[in-house]
């Protein structure tokens, strides 16, 4: 895989002294979908704004396909498309004019056929002559994507693409991203919906307090950090963890059963010992099941650790 975007030691301190980014390092491979996951105020939008040229970094370097984003800003920005978090659109313009304007800004000659192709991809074609103010929120968000795609960028930034969007449209958005991936576009999206990262991303980066805590393959991340839980249902429900089992990390479930947390990747899970000790304690099993922790649990754990 070739690295298409490289962020190295980027810091950002605002005038008031608030340090939004504390030395971010991040390499993005060509053609991948990376989800940048983080709570509000983690520095996601600041990082994207700096890469796209909307804000300036206090220190650090960024290269886009080998071009320094400050020195060779024209070459670097030509490769980038940005879909901002807020719906920032000129309300009185038509969809077509607005997209034409964006294409022009990126130095591309007028090409209505190409724009119409993009509008079709985004199911916007029948709205092309409508004024933006008459469109629904979801349609406006599509216009933003069309504007970001109209100069055929290699990298697309989607800043919270589905914030405040209904379920159906969110699924559509995921579909659009999947299609873009097929065309070879690298997608970097920020989100605080874990479900979204899980559904779309190849890799996941977790950012909190201006620092990237980790960047990993999505599946590996879930596997590596994935805690499993063994749910033990008992014939006779209990209120507290029996004395004889106090050595195990057990909690009582709502139904009066026991929950045993263990690391599925560890050499010994301790399940065999637990089950025999359960029998010795005179408890009879009604049922057993396991549960894999979701990305959300992992995320909450990571951010909690970082805050601690």
């Amino acid at each position: 895989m070739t690295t298409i975007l490289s962020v190295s030691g980027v810091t950002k301190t605002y005038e008031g002294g608030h340090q939004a980014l504390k030395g971010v390092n991040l390499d993005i491979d060509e053609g991948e979908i990376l989800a940048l996951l983080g709570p509000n105020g983690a520095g996601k939008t600041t990082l994207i704004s700096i890469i796209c040229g909307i804000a300036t970094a206090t220190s650090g370097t960024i290269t886009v396909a080998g071009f320094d984003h400050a020195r060779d800003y024209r070459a670097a920005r030509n490769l980038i498309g940005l879909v901002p978090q807020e719906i920032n659109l000129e309300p009185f313009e038509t969809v077509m004019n607005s997209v034409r304007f964006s294409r022009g800004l990126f130095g591309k000659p007028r090409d209505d056929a190409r724009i119409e192709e993009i509008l079709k991809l985004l199911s916007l074609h029948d709205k092309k002559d409508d004024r933006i103010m008459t469109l629904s929120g979801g349609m406006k968000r599509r216009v933003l994507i069309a504007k970001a795609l109209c100069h055929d960028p290699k990298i697309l930034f989607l800043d919270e693409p589905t914030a405040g969007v209904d379920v159906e449209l969110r699924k559509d958005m995921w579909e659009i991203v999947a299609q873009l991936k097929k065309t070879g576009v690298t997608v970097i999206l920020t989100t605080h919906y874990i479900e979204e990262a899980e559904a779309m991303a190849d890799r996941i980066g977790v950012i909190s307090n201006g620092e990237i805590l980790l960047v990993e393959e999505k599946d590996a991340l879930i596997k590596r950090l994935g805690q499993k839980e063994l749910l033990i249902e008992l014939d006779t429900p209990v209120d507290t963890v029996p004395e004889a089992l106090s050595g195990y990390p057990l909690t009582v479930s709502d139904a009066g059963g026991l929950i045993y947390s263990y690391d599925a990747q560890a050499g010994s899970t301790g399940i065999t010992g637990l089950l025999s000790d359960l029998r010795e304690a005179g408890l009879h099993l009604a049922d057993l099941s396991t549960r894999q922790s979701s990305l959300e649990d992992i995320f909450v754990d990571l951010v909690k650790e970082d805050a601690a």
Partner: protein
Amino acid sequence: MNWNAIAAIYRFEMARTFRTLVQSVISPVLSTSLYFIVFGAAIGSRIDQVEGVSYGAFIVPGLIMLTVLTQSTSNASFGIYFPKFIGTVYELLSAPISFFEIVIGYVGAAATKAFMIGIIILITAHFFVDLTIAHPVWMMLFLILTCISFALLGFIIGIWAGNFEQLQLVPMLVITPLVFLGGSFYSISMLPPVWQTITLFNPVVYLISGFRWAFFGQADVALGWSIAAIILFMSACLITIGWIFRSGYKLRA
């Protein structure tokens, strides 16, 4: 040069002008016609000639300047303030476009619109007064330079303004008084000697004087001063804009 980007900004801004034709073009023409009716025909008929020119004709350059200065400033300030206000400025900042190209696009469109209105007023004036232009080339040059200079000023105001009130503040409180007191409706020689001296600190005096010279071949101040003043003013605006983009003032966090 990213010519396509300049053209995109220019076209986008001009489209706004044509979309709001009544507000953009017809209203300045109407207000100027009212000036002609009130100052030129009603009051002017009771005033003798000023420096050998009928009063109605004498006020034409001043009236054009009044509208052109206000229009170029407000067009350019609105042009760049509006994207800031609605948030679409992110597109300008993230596009492969230099500050110089952004300025050409916005200032070019604002100046074009002001120039068009200036010419329309000139044509309108012909319906009210007899007018011959002594130095048409100089007249055009003054008009174009004025449109560009004040569009540059407007651009600075648009970047600086934090709300719509501030956007109106400079045109209303600074430019309009300076134009009215800059000899739009009178010759400076008509003022008492003290005010003649004070007036010389008003930069608009030099613009109107130079412009009037292009019309009638006579001026309140020497032509050289008028040209120097407009070049000085334009340079000051360009330096300020250069600084704004280097520092990212009110644009880049």
